[in-house]
């Protein structure tokens, strides 16, 4: 009985997001929409482009904060597991389990705990990044050649020095690869933050869900954002690994 009552509150909140949610909110678009064959209404786009300003900024904030938080946690977990081998499997399983929770359900499960708003969205989005960042960091560390570690230790580097001066720098490509995957998928997932009341590009999308121009604009911005983040991270990776560039140049 108690568990049913516990479920009642979040379900009530779901009720607020009722069947009207998906209906056309305003009539402005109706004139352009009247022609069903028209895929993209340029006029409307030109006039209404600034509607997407705030949602875009919100979206960037959602992604940036979630990635930073997710990276901080996943990286710390990876360092722990690197030191204490027995943690590897449980942590991999744990982060994986978080990843399997469907996004919208995750938001709703958090609602009674953290309420509606950006924080809820960020918690869920960060949780999704954990597995890929954790796994890639572990893989990167595992791929450091044993001979390099042997030589490093044999020369007198302490465990900590070896980790920070040798292992982590060499694991950078894999770690950044994980960050890139996490970032691109977070950009996509953040469009669902609207269900948690978190803002972002999901807001305009669901405001006019049947208006194709709107979808194309909001979706297009999200895609460009994902590509931009990806390229920035790729640039960071290239800058951080000059030795790979040298090897490539030689090949």
């Amino acid at each position: 009985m108690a568990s049913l009552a516990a479920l009642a509150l979040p379900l009530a909140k779901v009720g607020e997001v009722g069947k009207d949610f998906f209906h056309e909110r305003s009539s402005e678009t109706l004139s352009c929409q009247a022609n069903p064959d028209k895929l993209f209404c340029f006029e409307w786009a030109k006039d209404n482009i600034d509607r997407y300003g705030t949602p875009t900024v919100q979206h960037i904030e959602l992604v940036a904060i979630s990635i930073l938080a997710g990276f901080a946690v996943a990286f710390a977990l990876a360092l722990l597991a690197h030191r204490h081998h027995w943690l590897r499997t449980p942590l991999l399983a744990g982060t994986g389990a978080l990843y399997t929770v469907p996004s919208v359900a995750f938001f709703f499960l958090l609602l009674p705990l953290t309420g509606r708003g950006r924080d809820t969205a960020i918690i869920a989005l960060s949780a999704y990044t954990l597995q890929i960042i954790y796994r890639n960091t572990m893989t990167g560390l595992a791929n450091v050649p044993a001979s390099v570690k042997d030589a490093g230790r044999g020369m007198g580097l302490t465990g900590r020095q070896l980790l920070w001066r040798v292992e982590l720098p060499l694991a950078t490509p894999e770690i950044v690869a994980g960050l890139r995957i996490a970032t691109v998928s977070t950009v996509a997932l953040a469009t669902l933050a609207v269900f948690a009341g978190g803002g972002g590009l999901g807001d305009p999308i669901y405001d006019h869900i049947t208006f194709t121009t709107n979808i194309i604009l909001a979706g297009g911005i999200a895609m460009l954002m994902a590509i931009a983040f990806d390229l920035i991270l790729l640039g960071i990776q290239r800058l951080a690994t000059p030795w790979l560039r040298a090897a490539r140049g030689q090949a």
Partner: protein
Amino acid sequence: MPSAVRYENATKRYGDSTTAAVDRLNLEVAAGEICVLVGPSGCGKTTAMRLVNRTVELSEGDVLIGGESVRERDPARLRRETGYVIQQIGLFPHRTIAENVATVPQLLGWKKDRIAARTTELLALVGLDPELGGRYPAQLSGGQQQRVGVARALAADPLVMLMDEPFGAIDPINRERLQNEFLRLQAEIGKTVLFVTHDIDEAIKMGDRIAVMREGGRVAQYATPAELLMDPADEFVEDFVGADRALKRLALMRVSDISLWEAPLAHVGQATAEVRAKLRGAEVPYPLLVDSERRPLGWLSERDLAAETVPAQPDSPLGPLLDLDDVMRDALADLLQGEAQYAAVADRSGRIAGVLSVEIISEFLASPAAKTEEHGAVERPHD
């Protein structure tokens, strides 16, 4: 002279296994010597080497470096005082060559310009263009990488060098070059080196003293290369050294080490009657044609001697021309290759010094003089 490294009943047991990987090893390495640990795979030679810098921890017993127990040192600090060169080289891929070489000096807190000077000095010492300092390891060949590995190990002027099959991953041509260069380097700097290999030929070439090990790191024989080849302690050592140990001894000698035979010399235009007179009772039954500077030109045949005077063009070509400085094994190889019975030996200025033949070599090997020969490290042939 105090030993640089001393094993005292050093033992290593893994887990709760009853058999020891290294079982009560007692060994003394003198300062400035290359001590080679050689033996079949799994005999514990690498483990024994690693006990010195604590990359493998002792189970029982002790290892002393310069009289000080390794157990009493902090492992990281200890390792900064021992050079470490491994087979897979293990250069840091993300650091330049110069940064790799500077690793230990940096750990020790040296000043930047001291490090830079030392790096340039070391790269030159191992035969690398100091300009390579700015490159990354992936841009160097395997042989070059291992030279950097050696330079890196020498950077902080360690007390002891530990080398675990350092040239094992290099192709044979470069391996020989690296071995020779390391020996030359060693002649200059005189480090105490513990060198592990499974290759008996490398052991004989590199070692001042060789410890032949069997399972459990047990030393079957600890001797100089010459002693090992002439007097193997038991069947194990004999088998390990190989059935061709007589030939191996030749690698330790130079042509100048034995007394050569004399061939009767002939000059162009000389009366053949004179030459024939010299032939009677000569050690070598063929006259050798030489020029005015006594440089060998060729061998004279019966047909040449049929004429009145010695012709300018001898019937037989000179064939292999050996040098007094040649390693005996290479000289024998040249003799056999040239399918010649006799080969002229010249000195550094090209003048005839004598004649070598297979007979001379085998006579010498069997003689008591050869058995008492001492071959010091400095005189070891290594070109």
